[in-house]
Structure formats: structure tokens, C-alpha cells
């Protein structure tokens, strides 16, 4: 187990390092230095930047300093908002985005697993058919389309729920639905197929041959095994939800990290883009790492076969 965790941990570090390096050199490929386009930057900011990134130094030195700033979690100032630092934006935006993300994942997991198990148990029945059609629809409707449709119908036409900002539980309903539908549909489909496969396994037959009740067979013998694949895709799902927050926060005017990231992109505010990208990537890779460990804990076989995970 320890070896397995260590291996995953090394992968994590390598991945973050690659993303950070990629970000740095991509940004340096831009015409001119990202930090000294006179037409967009005022002098105070310019001085801040030069102080932070040592722009007069050779590229290699800049790179090392950049890596150092990542390790110390200090992403420097914003170009467009001279009074802001990237850290300040992250500090304000992250808790809100995290709240949105956690609720989304929780709701997607619970409803997706329930829908998938239900569909599998009523295999080929009308309920299965309806549930899976809903699920394919959920996968097919992009989150930003769903979000705008929800606003148009529920907020504008019917006026039952508020359309924007993040100030009360009612405000959270539409963004969470818009963001959770896709992952829910993916989880439902995966749970269903995995549950169906699990139900044909010999050990389920053994459990039936023991005279256990159907409920006990499903809860004790089938569910845990059937949910293993769901655990493995959680990492990818979290990544999807995270990128989803970019558009959802933009549409619903939620002051989260995604909003700052999108604003950063639109204004070509490079330190903000670099800082948020690295932060997002590190966060995601950490999530993937945690998911891998969770998988290792859930599946007793992992300890023997050190090759695990996906």
C-alpha cells in the first residue's frame, strides 16, 4: 500500500511540474513578454511585476524563480487590477467555487448512483429505458446550454428561482442543477452498466444460492463492487465539474475562481491565467491522487497487485 501511494504521489508531483513548466514556456512564447505590453500595463504594475518575476534576468533564472513562487504559493500581482494579487483573487474565489463544486459532486453522486442502480435492477424495463434516455440527454446537453435554458425558463419566465449571484441557498439551486446534470448522467450510466455486470458475477450467484434476500445481495454483495468503476472516474468528473465552473460562474455571475479565470482570459491578464491554471491543475491532480488512494482502500486486491487505479 505504501509503495502504491508513493508511486501515485510521484506521478502527482511530476504532473504538476509539467503543467507549471508548460504554462511558463507557453506564456513566454507569446509575442513580446507577457508582462511588458506597455499599452495595457501601467507603470506601478510594471514595477511590481519586474520585482516579482525579475524580468531583466535570463529566462532560466526567471523559470527557477517562477518555480519557487509556485512552491511558496505566491503567484504575484495582477496586471489589469493593480491593487490585486493573484493570491488575493484565489483566496476570495476558491471558497465559493469549492462550495459550488462540492455540492455539485455530492448531488451528482447520490442521484446518479440511485438512478443507475434503479435502472439496473429494472433492467430492460420501461423505467430502465426512461432513466437511460434521461441520462443520455444529460450527457448531451452542454452545461452552459442547460444553465441558460434554466435561467430563461425558471428564473425569467416563471420567476421561481433567482438567476444570478451566490448569496442564499435559493441562489445555489440553478447553478448546481446546471453543473450536476452532466456528471449525474455519466455516473448513472456507469453505475448501471457496472451493476448489471456485477449482478452476473458468480459471487452474486453464490450469494443467491446461500438464500440471502435480494436487498442484502444488492447492498452487501453488489453495490460495493459495482461502485468501484465509479470511484475511478471520480477524478475525471471532478475535472469536468471544475472546468464547468468557468462557464457556470460566468453565466450566473458567481464571484468564484472560474469567474476570475475567465475574466483573466478575456483581458489577457497573464499572471492571473498562469496562477489560476497552476492552482487548478495542482488541485485537480491532488484530487486524482486522493481518488486513487480511496480506490486502494476500497479494493482489498490493490495491496497485492501494486498496479492499480485506472
Amino acid at each position: 500500500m505504501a509503495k502504491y501511494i508513493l508511486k501515485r504521489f510521484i506521478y502527482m508531483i511530476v504532473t504538476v511540474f509539467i503543467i507549471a513548466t508548460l504554462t511558463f514556456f507557453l506564456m513566454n512564447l507569446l509575442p513580446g513578454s507577457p508582462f511588458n505590453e506597455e499599452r495595457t500595463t501601467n507603470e506601478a504594475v510594471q514595477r511590481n511585476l519586474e520585482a516579482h518575476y525579475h524580468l531583466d534576468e535570463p529566462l532560466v533564472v526567471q523559470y527557477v524563480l517562477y518555480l519557487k513562487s509556485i512552491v511558496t504559493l505566491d503567484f504575484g500581482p495582477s496586471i489589469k487590477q493593480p491593487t490585486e494579487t493573484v493570491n488575493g483573487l484565489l483566496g476570495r474565489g476558491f471558497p465559493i467555487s469549492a462550495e459550488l463544486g462540492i455540492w455539485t459532486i455530492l448531488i451528482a453522486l447520490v442521484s446518479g448512483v440511485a438512478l443507475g442502480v434503479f435502472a439496473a435492477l429494472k433492467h430492460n424495463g420501461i423505467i430502465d429505458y426512461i432513466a437511460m434516455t434521461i441520462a443520455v440527454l444529460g450527457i448531451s446537453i452542454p452545461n452552459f446550454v442547460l444553465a441558460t435554458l434554466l435561467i430563461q425558463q425558471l428564473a425569467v419566465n416563471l420567476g421561481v428561482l433567482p438567476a444570478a449571484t451566490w448569496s442564499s441557498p435559493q441562489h445555489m439551486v440553478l447553478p448546481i442543477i446546471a453543473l450536476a446534470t452532466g456528471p449525474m448522467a455519466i455516473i448513472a450510466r456507469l453505475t448501471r452498466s457496472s451493476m448489471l455486470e456485477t449482478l452476473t458475477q458468480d459471487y452474486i450467484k453464490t450469494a443467491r444460492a446461500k438464500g440471502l434476500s435480494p436487498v442484502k445481495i444488492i447492498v452487501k454483495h453488489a453495490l460495493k463492487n459495482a461502485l468501484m468503476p465509479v470511484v475511478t472516474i471520480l477524478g475525471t468528473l471532478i475535472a469536468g465539474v471544475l472546468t464547468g465552473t468557468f462557464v457556470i460562474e460566468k453565466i450566473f455571475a458567481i464571484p468564484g475562481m472560474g469567474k476570475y479565470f475567465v475574466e483573466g482570459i478575456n483581458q489577457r491578464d497573464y499572471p492571473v491565467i498562469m496562477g489560476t491554471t497552476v492552482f487548478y491543475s495542482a488541485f485537480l491532480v491532488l484530487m486524482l491522487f486522493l481518488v486513487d488512494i480511496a480506490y486502494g482502500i476500497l479494493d482489498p486486491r490493490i495491496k497485492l497487485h501494486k498496479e492499480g487505479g485506472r
Partner: protein
Amino acid sequence: MIPAKKQKEETPHSTIPDEWFKPKEQNSEDAESVVRPSLSYWEDAWRRLRQNKLAMFGLIFLILLGVMAVIGPWISPHDVDTQNLPNQNQAPSFTHWFGTDELGRDVFTRTWYGARISLFVGLMAALIDFFIGVAYGGLSGYKGGRTDNIMMRIIEILYGLPYLLVVILLLVVMGPSLLTIIIALTVTGWVGMARIVRGQVLQLKHNEFVMASQSFGAKTKRIIQKNLLPNTMGPIIVQMTLTVPTAIFAEAFLSFLGLGIQSPYASWGMMANDALGVILSGDWWRLFFPAFFISATMFAFNVLGDGLQDALDPKLRR
């Protein structure tokens, strides 16, 4: 089969003619004749796909969409980017079948133009993924050993990268255009295909039926047609079918963020983004048409992919 008990009543023992009890020459063809006639893999897959109503619906929708993407802008009397400010935000009518946008541009024309962009991006991404994936996965699986090991470690790391984040980063650097979108999507998109191809190659390399066919003296061409293609092409075709909606989604997503196709060209994601500005005014057609066509296209590709997955799975062959 009639159970033995009932037969007793229908054919009494003694009514069977004596001649029937003469020993008969065993016919060796008879011994094999009981086997069902076999359909070819593709015939069988097509037969099963046809039974899947949802998948067929998806296929027909996509064919119609493809036709409209080609002829749609032609049959419309309006240009894709001709602005007509007095005509802005008009509801669907006989002159503007899908209405107009805030610059008075014809939504009908723009919708089919968007279909071109979406289908082009989706198909190109799938095609490029296919070529890179086959080259990389094929080499990795075929070489095996140390090469395979290193190549797979690289894939594992690439797989951990957040797909859309990398795409956004690349677009910020390269600047938004149709070409850069396709490049950005394929730079990270081929990993899934490479894994599948490698898995297939590995499986085939040591497969017993390949060796068996060779030892029977089967011709190489026949081995490829009868054994290799059906067994490898199935998962690859399915993967390609499912890559298309992912790419279409990514393009729409990026265009929605303002990182995709730029004006004067039209893309569904961009049209949806523009519609967000007039969402309060009740101009429903602005959102409805791009939203409907993105969702319906992705739906069609997804159900077709699911249908193909079932139809091409050799394990499910009956």
C-alpha cells in the same frame, strides 16, 4: 420438440414402419449441418444496429444534419454575416425562418453554418485522434518491453492533465481560430485512442486465433479481414464516435467563453453566448436554435456510439 410422453399418443410404437429400422449410412455432412448459417461480422453488426431504434434515430438525424450543413446556407436567401440593423431581433417569420439576431443576421443561415463548424471540428478531431492514436498506440503495443513502458508512462501523465484547461491555455497562446481549436483539441485528445489501440494490438499480438489461422495456412489478407479487423475496429470505431461529441462540446464551450470561432463566422457556442445577452427580453429563438442543435447533435452521436458499442461487441454476438 414434442416431449416423449405426448409422442406415445401421436405415433404408437407399432405404427412405425419396419424399414425405418434399417441401418443408415452416416452422412458426415449431416453431422455438421445442424450448425446455423453464419453471418459475416459486419452484416451481423449492422443487423443489430438496425434493431436499436435510438441509434438509428441518431444516425438519420446526423445524415440530415450533414445534408443541411452543406445545402442549408445555400437554400437560405440570406448571408451568414450580412448585417441588417433595422431587422434586428426579429422573431421567426417567412423571410427569416429562425428569426434574426441583434445585428439583424439570419439565424437560419447561421445555424447551418454552425453545423458546418461543429461537424468539421468533431470529425477532424476524431480523425486526427485516430491517426495519432493508431501510430502511438500501435507502436507502443507492437514494440512492447521498455519502449512500451516509457510510452505508457507518458500517456499516464498526459491522462492526468486537465483536458479543457490545457486546451484553454493553448488557445490563449495560439489565438482563437478554427485551426487552433482543432490543434488544441487533438494535442490532448489522442490519449484515449492510443490506449485503446495499444490494448488491441497487445491482445492481437499473442492471440491464439491469429496463430491458429496462420497454422491452418490462411492467407494474410484473409486473417486481416476475418480476424484482425473485426476485433480491433470495433472499439476504435466506438471511440471515434464518442470523440466527436466531446470535440463538439469543447468547441461550443470555448466559443461560449469567447476563445473559439470568431465573428463573422458563426458557431453554435458563440450564438448561445450572444443569446445570453438578450435572455431577459424573451427573444427565445436566439437561444433555442443553437441550444437545440448542439444538444441534439451530441445526443445523436452519443446514442449512435452506444448502439455501435453494443452492435460491434464480439462478445454480444448471437
